Structure formats: structure tokens, C-alpha cells
């Protein structure tokens, strides 16, 4: 009955959309910048993308130098989806690589801005933190809390950003436009002009997802593809499959573009059950989709929002506390897509269905058991 509840919130939703437009999720300059970064060569050690970075800007952290052992505090937006589950497991394993870390204090905001603001206050007041890592629930709401923390602690932000320059570094992969470009270009290159594309999205109004969609739409418009619709699946398999079934009843689908891959297999099954060939499809690095792609020989690609970015804040935190300079004020990590050529490297049927293969976690302690693998 989520939909029913949403109904009662329709006005709030419209207001929200208006606000979303103000934030501009279709910025040609950012689109061009990220498109360039996707093909640029990153600095840093080969084969370890979680410590690589684009550009040469570094931040001096000598003033934060302090003797160990360290207590790292982490205010987490939530562990409420499979991407965050994989990422959070990565982070805990990364901590085990650093003997100088005495303790990782983790507070889970469970997807609530209010709780996260209170969590950050508590961490500051507790006085135990050597450094604070924040993965903000939403950008605008968490900005004042992060600013307050900056006044007493060194702060590192990752995943979603905040609207302040006070953190030492903001760690994130190339970004939403990059994701949308990788998936959008694959579709555009594999169908003919005028082809029908169905865009499946999770929810409206989230910056990292809106930019994925706007980038793809820009590419589809340039190529002259027909967008059948932009539908919101709320990340639900049953809803995704139903939506695709309904579109199939109304006509032909030449390509499926998705802003996230958790329900890609459900979308594929809609074609299977209708006895139709699976069209060009873009997913993400979830194991179930990668395995389906290989078994069925699909024409597919998998852009990623790599979960190895959860390792980087721990690495950054330790460097900061040792007074070593780190990339900043933004630490932009590579954001590779999985293609037909690299597919085999990432497939591992011992891992759970929604394990994100681009985790950079294979050499971490307790792999694969901690990630639910066998």
C-alpha cells in the first residue's frame, strides 16, 4: 500500500519535484566533466582503484597529526539496501588491515535525517572520536550537522555530498552522470535510431539517481531514440516485472535502461515469460544480473557505483591522523563499467545474488564469508 500512502502525500511530492528541479540534475558542464573522467587515466597504484584518484589536488593534513591508536567514528545513513550492505562489509574488513585503529564506532541512521543529525551530535559530545566519517542521508539536511562537526573534529564525507567545503575531503566515484553515460551510450550504440527505450528507475528526487537518468536521456535524445516511459520501480522485483509486462502488452521494447541493477533480473524475466527475446539491457554489478547475462548470452552492460569506495574513507582517515596528505577537497575514484570482455572476471556464483561484484574486496580479511559467500 506504499502507493496508496504516496497518494496522500501527492502535494508534498509535487513540492519535492519542484525543489528537485531547482537543484538542477541536468548540468551540461558536469556531464562533460564526468564523461571525460570516465576515459581519463587515474593516479595511484595499478589495480587498486580504491586508492586511485583523478587530478593532482592534494590537501595537507599535518595539523591533524596525532599519536595512535585511533578511534574512528562513522555516521552511516543506513544499511538499508544491498549496495550499502556490501559497502559496510567492505569498510569493516578494511579496518582490520590497520592495526593503528583501536575501534570503529558505527552509528546507523536507518535512513532518517533526524536520527543522523542526532547521531553526529552524540558522537561529538561523546569525545571519543579521533576523526569522523559521514555518509550523509540527504545532502541539504545534513550540511549543518557536518559543519558543526568540522568545528571540533577532522571530518571525511563520502558517497553523497554536503553543501559545505569544511570536510577535509569528499570521497566519491566519478558520479551519476558517468553512470548514465556508460549505460546510455551502450544502448545508443546497440540499437538503431528511432528504437524504443524503456527507462526503469528506483525513485525520483535522489541526486545520484536523477543525474544518471538525465545523462542517459540526453544521449537518447541526441541519438533520436524514442523513450517509451520513465517508470519508478521502488527497487521492487514484482513491481518491475509488472511494469515491463504492461509495456510489452502495449508494444515493442528494443532496449531497457536501468538506473540501478537490483531488479534487472525481474525485468529480464518479463520477456522470458512472454516468450520474447531479451532486448539490449543495462544493469549494475549485482551477481544475479551478471550470471544471467552470461548464461543467456545477453547484449548487456553493467555500469557500477563501486562499493570499494567504502574502503577509501578508512584509508583516508588513517592517513589524515598520521599527517599524510590525501587527495582533496574532492577525492574522485574511478568508476569502471563491467562489459562483455570483463564479465568473466566479476562472476562468482559462490556469492549471494545482490552481492556487488565491483567491491574490491576479494583480498580483504574474511572474504568471502563476511559478504555472505561460500
Amino acid at each position: 500500500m506504499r502507493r496508496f500512502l504516496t497518494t496522500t502525500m501527492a502535494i508534498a511530492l509535487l513540492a519535492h519535484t519542484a525543489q528537485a528541479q531547482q537543484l538542477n540534475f541536468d548540468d551540461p558542464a558536469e556531464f562533460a566533466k564526468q564523461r571525460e573522467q570516465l576515459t581519463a587515466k587515474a593516479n595511484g597504484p595499478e589495480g587498486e582503484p580504491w586508492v586511485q584518484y583523478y587530478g593532482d589536488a592534494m590537501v595537507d593534513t599535518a595539523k591533524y597529526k596525532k599519536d595512535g591508536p585511533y578511534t574512528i567514528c562513522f555516521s552511516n545513513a543506513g544499511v538499508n539496501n544491498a549496495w550499502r550492505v556490501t559497502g559496510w562489509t567492505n569498510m569493516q574488513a578494511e579496518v582490520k588491515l590497520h592495526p593503528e585503529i583501536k575501534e570503529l564506532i558505527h552509528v546507523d541512521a536507518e535512513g532518517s535525517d533526524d536520527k543522523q543529525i542526532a547521531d553526529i551530535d552524540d558522537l561529538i559530545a561523546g569525545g571519543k572520536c579521533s576523526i569522523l566519517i559521514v555518509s550523509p542521508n540527504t545532502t541539504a539536511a545534513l550540511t549543518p550537522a557536518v559543519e558543526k562537526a568540522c568545528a571540533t573534529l577532522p571530518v571525511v564525507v563520502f558517497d553523497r555530498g554536503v553543501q559545505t567545503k569544511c570536510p577535509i575531503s569528499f570521497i566519491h566515484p566519478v558520479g551519476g552522470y558517468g553512470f548514465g553515460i556508460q549505460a546510455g551510450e551502450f544502448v545508443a550504440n546497440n540499437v538503431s535510431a528511432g528504437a524504443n527505450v524503456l527507462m526503469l528507475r528506483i525513485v525520483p528526487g535522489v541526486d545520484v539517481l536523477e543525474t544518471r537518468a538525465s545523462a542517459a536521456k540526453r544521449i537518447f535524445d541526441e541519438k533520436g531514440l524514442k523513450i517509451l516511459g520513465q517508470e519508478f520501480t521502488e527497487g521492487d522485483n514484482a513491481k518491475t516485472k509488472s511494469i515491463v509486462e504492461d509495456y510489452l502488452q502495449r508494444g515493442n521494447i528494443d532496449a531497457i535502461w536501468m538506473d540501478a541493477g537490483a531488479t534487472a533480473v525481474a525485468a529480464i524475466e518479463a520477456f522470458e515469460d512472454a516468450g520474447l527475446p531479451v532486448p539490449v539491457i543495462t544493469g549494475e554489478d549485482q551477481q544475479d544480473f551478471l550470471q544471467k547475462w552470461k548464461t543467456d548470452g545477453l547484449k548487456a552492460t553493467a555500469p557500477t557505483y563501486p562499493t570499494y569506495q567504502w574502503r577509501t574513507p578508512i584509508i583516508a582517515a588513517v592517513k589524515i591522523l598520521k599527517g599524510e596528505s590525501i587527495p582533496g577537497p574532492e577525492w574522485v575514484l574511478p568508476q569502471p563499467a563491467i562489459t562483455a570482455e570483463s564479465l568473466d572476471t566479476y562472476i562468482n556464483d559462490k556469492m549471494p545474488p545482490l552481492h556487488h561484484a565491483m567491491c574490491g574486496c576479494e583480498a580483504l580479511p574474511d572474504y568471502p564469508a563476511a559478504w555472505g559467500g561460500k
Partner: protein
Amino acid sequence: MTEKAVKMTDTNLFAGKRRLPQVNPVYFVLAALLCAIALSNPNFLEPTGYMNFLKRAAPLAILAAGQIYVIVSGGFDLSVGSVITLTVVGSSMLLDNNDDATWWVILVMFAIGAAVGLINGLVVSYLRVPSLIATLGMMITLNGAAFMWSSGSPRGYLPDTFRFFGRFNIKGMPLIQFLPVALIVLVVVGLALFWLMHRTNLGRLLHAVGDNPRAAQMSGVPVERIRIFAFVISSLSAVTAGILLGGFAGVSTDVGTGYELQAITATVIGGAQLLGGRGSVPASIAGALTLAAIFTLLNFIGLPKPTRDVVQGLILIAAVVLATYRRNRTGGR
């Protein structure tokens, strides 16, 4: 004295005449919606159209047919959504793509479902906790349990033998081309629940308990046991719905979210009286189909999402108003 008696007979006759042609308006609403769907998309009249619709609506219809037992007995069961989630997540954990385990895993799930219903019923009947609160607590507990079991992300797949019920279509049928197994499940479960509520003494006691628990108690109805029975039926229907949903689309960790309210809405559209004493299994199933038809129609018309939500809400309210109006007119309570 005689005059009075004659008068009374008259009134009864009159009421009888008015009541006879009454058909539950939910069937008209459903028919109207199906016509609208067919008009907006003629492909709906093809077997793939209406069969997919029925297949998709089957879990909610079964859930509503179970929920009506609790509603008629005067309660609510908010825990059914979490039972669905637990069924899907738990089955995927226990099965882990092992075809042979399907049968015992399904039995285990029904056992868990029965236990959940039993606890709901015991808490409501003997600890005197209002059902809204008791089942809300159960919902939170079970969602937590499913999360703990899976650590928030699906840890296994559902093999084809399990997914058979929610996904498989029997092909090569005359006229209808194919028949979804989910539809067979719906018909069987629907008939069984119909029979139990409308053709047995148990069903009559259920209505009595919901209509006036005190009167029922005084006339020797085992109120507590009847209530427990209603909750067990509701939980078992949720397990069935979970098996169909998991079969239809695979594992999600929040697959059941929101289904409790959809099921209650479906029963209300079907003319059930919240707080008990009145409701029917076929009308609840029709209510569920109506709800599913509203979703499908709005998908087909292709309105933007916010508009769709507004229209959907208005249709829902209208459907419930219609059901209530009819109840008032016929003098039902």
C-alpha cells in the same frame, strides 16, 4: 395488537423486496474497471493480457481472502506483509537453489505462519491486547527477524521448483492458450476459504463473534478459539501469498511491505465492515481484483506518476464510499 403484527410483517416484506436485487457493488466497480482497461488497451482481451492480470493479482486476492477472517471476527491483521517478507527471505535462505528442498521448506514456512497466527491470536484473546497493536508489534518483530536472518540483503536464490507456483504457466490450453499456476492456487484457496466461512458453522460463529462478542460469549461461543482460528487463517494466507510473490519475481528483502494495508483496503472495497460482523470471501477477492485493476488501468493510461497517485487515491476513496453507501441503504451495520 393484530394491527401491529400485520404492520411489522409488511415492513419485513418491504425490506425483503428491496434487499433481494441487491448485488454487492464491488462487482459492478470491478466490471467497469475491466471494461475501461479493455478500452484503453484492447490487448488486455488477449489471454496474455487478462491472465497476466489475474496472475499478478492472485497474491493480494489470497491475502484479502485470509484477512477477511480477522476483519469479520472484529480485528485487524497488520502482520501479513511481514509474514510475506519472512516467507520469501526465509525460503531463499533455506533453499539456496536446492531443487529438492522445496517441499519441506514450504511445509516449514506454513508451520512458521501457523505459529505466527497462533501467537497473534493468543495475545489478542488472552492478553487482551488490541489486535491493531498486537499485530503491529508482530509486524515489526518479523521484519526485524527477516533482516537479521538475511543481514539486509538476499543471501540465496529461489529454485524453479519453488517458483513454479508463482511463475509457471501451463501451456497449450484450449481457448485460453495458457493457465498460470498462480490462478489455480487462487481458485483452490478461494473456494476453500469461501466454503469455510459461508458454508460451515465455524463461519457463522466467526460472524457472531465479530458482530457482538459479548452476546456470542453468553450464547456459549468459544470466542477466544474462534479469534485464534481467524488469525491462523490470515497468517497461512500470507504464507501462500509469499510463495506466489517470491515465485513471480524472485527474492526482495522488502517484498511484503505495504501488503497489509492493501489487503485491508481490498476487504473494505469488498464491503466488509471494519470492527467486525460483516464481510464475504468472494467480495474481498473482488475487492483485491478491483485494487489490482486500478493499478493496471493507470499503468496502461500512461499518466505521469504523481497524477497517477492522485487518481488512484480518489478512485479508492470513491470505491469505499460506494461500499459504505450501499451498506447504509440496506440497513446493514
